[in-house]
């Protein structure tokens, strides 16, 4: 665990970048520092690997003051990833990644083998190994940066706005990969961003800093969304707080209705039987994939006019997707019902917006209960 203890950083010019900050950064989780430009995120991060020395306070790594070990040893035990990756332009991708193992005295061969292994882990084609950084796209460079930081298998990873220079699509990929890597490797990651969405998506815990380097709130993302500590945090979280928070409510418990599902080739009897099951029926193709909604009265056996079916929105996968996806599906369809599908896209049920609403309220209840328990302890 990294423990930042009442740390203040005053730069020689008098700027107070960080002001009496205390944070406990749990092991094997992603802790995100977020806040407006100039609020001291980078400074805080760099104090952890002593690229900046605190003016006051101390930082403990597993209970030991980080000033007690030689600075370069400390840094080698922490991966560091920055915006634009900061790759060495004069070295090939492979040698970039192999840098720290080489620093640690590994043989060139060993270091390169390790580098090749890491390229795969971060999703880079090993055909790129002999290329130079300028021959890579921004997203690829960023992956190399992550691989390089991981090369010595350090327990801690410090990441300073690593994805902010790539376009939104690639950024999403990189975020997903980071989550995957984190799941596989269980590193202690401190991640700096100024993008609240990124913070909420990636963070196990999120520390919101305000200008002047003071801590505004430090909480799990769901808690941040449901109970912002003050107006500053609330503003910073933006307008969609409620809906975004639904990302943390699982859709697993939703009670799906299967009665409104009818195959396109259903016979008249089936149709008649389902007619009263729901205001709308979801027509599916022979594989069970949703085609669209129809009022029961408009359906005739064996002949579905696909053109006349109503849009079924964007289906969600119960268990995998959150209530947010379910609600999105429900409000997207004119019927107000969301379609649930399995991993292969086959409809497994439908759920009304009302049921989703109840699930949301129930989830609120559970959160409140847990909060109560936590408070009671």
């Amino acid at each position, binding site marked *: 665990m990294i423990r930042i203890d009442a740390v203040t950083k005053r730069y020689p010019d008098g700027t107070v970048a960080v002001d009496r900050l205390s944070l406990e950064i749990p092991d094997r989780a992603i802790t995100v520092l977020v806040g407006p430009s100039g609020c001291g995120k980078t400074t805080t991060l760099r104090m952890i*690997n002593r*690229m900046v020395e605190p003016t006051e306070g101390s930082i403990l790594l597993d209970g030991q003051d980080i000033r007690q070990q030689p*600075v*370069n*040893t*400390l*840094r*080698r035990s*922490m*991966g*560091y990833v*920055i*915006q*634009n*990756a*900061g*790759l*060495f*332009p*004069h*070295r*090939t991708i492979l040698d970039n990644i192999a*840098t*720290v193992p080489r*620093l640690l005295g590994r043989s060139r061969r060993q270091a390169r083998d390790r580098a090749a292994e890491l390229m795969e882990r971060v999703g880079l084609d090993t055909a790129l190994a002999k290329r*130079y*950084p*300028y*021959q890579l796209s921004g997203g690829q460079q960023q992956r190399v*940066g992550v691989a*390089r*930081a991981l090369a010595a298998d350090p327990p801690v990873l*410090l990441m300073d706005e690593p994805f902010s220079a790539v376009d939104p699509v690639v950024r999403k990929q990189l975020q997903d990969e980071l989550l995957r890597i984190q799941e596989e490797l269980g590193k202690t990651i401190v991640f700096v961003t100024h993008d609240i969405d990124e913070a909420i998506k990636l963070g196990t815990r999120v520390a919101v800093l305000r200008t002047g380097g003071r801590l505004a709130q430090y909480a799990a993302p769901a808690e941040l969304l449901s109970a912002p500590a003050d107006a500053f945090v609330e503003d910073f979280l933006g307008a969609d707080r409620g809906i975004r928070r639904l990302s943390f409510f699982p859709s697993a418990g939703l009670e799906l209705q299967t009665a409104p599902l009818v195959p396109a080739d259903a016979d008249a009897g089936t149709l008649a039987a389902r007619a009263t099951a729901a205001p709308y029926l979801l027509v599916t193709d022979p594989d069970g994939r949703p085609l669209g909604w129809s009022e029961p009265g408009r359906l005739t056996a064996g002949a579905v006019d696909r053109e006349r079916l109503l849009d079924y929105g964007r289906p969600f996968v119960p268990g995998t997707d959150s209530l947010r996806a379910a609600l999105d599906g429900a409000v997207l369809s004119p019927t107000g019902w969301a379609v649930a599908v399995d991993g292969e896209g086959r409809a497994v049920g439908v759920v009304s917006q009302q049921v989703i609403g109840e699930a949301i309220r129930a989830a609120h209840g559970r959160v409140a209960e847990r909060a109560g328990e936590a408070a009671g302890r």
Partner: protein
Amino acid sequence: MNVLDFARAFFVDSAHWHGYDGIPTRFAEHIGYCLEALAIAAAIGLPVGLLTGHTGRGGNALAFLATAGRALPSFGLLVLMFIWIGLGLLPVMIPLVVLAVPPILVTTYEAVRSVDPSPVDAARGMGMPEARVLFQVEVPVALPLILSGLRTAAVQIVSTATIAAYVSLGGLGRYIIDGLYQKDYEKVVGGATLVAGLALVTLALFWAVSRLAVSPGVRRSGRG
């Protein structure tokens, strides 16, 4: 007769190809002076430039020194040094070194200063000792510029080493000074051609060195 004819006349005259005043001797002398001056200048300019560039300190003092170095007239220094020191190689080396240090110093400083800070930051962040940061990151990335500073200095030395002839040393300047006093255009043009040729060879050498020494990653990403 035009310049080309003079040059041709100079080179076809077999008398110019042997003896103590022959082209091979003078050429070797000239290269000797140049190499010595460049080596001394590099031995002064490179370490100081690398160090100031790496720490980012002393830039102003360095700029002042460099301007001063450029402002001191090589020829004047030569005469002064001759008056003070007398005959010998030293009075020639001093002005040549004074001439060559500023470009090496300033370019090296600028080259290291202008290295993209993010790889340097990353290098420190991964626990590289400062010396390695300098020699394994900053220098390789700054190499093209550092070489260009050395190249400028080398070409200036090649051209200016001709002044050695004024204090009765050899080198290609001999042809030019002798040609001037003897009113012998063949010698002047021939000598000038040899100097220019040597400068071109120097350029080509530096080009070759930068091809070999500069990482393709830096070469391509630098100038495009």
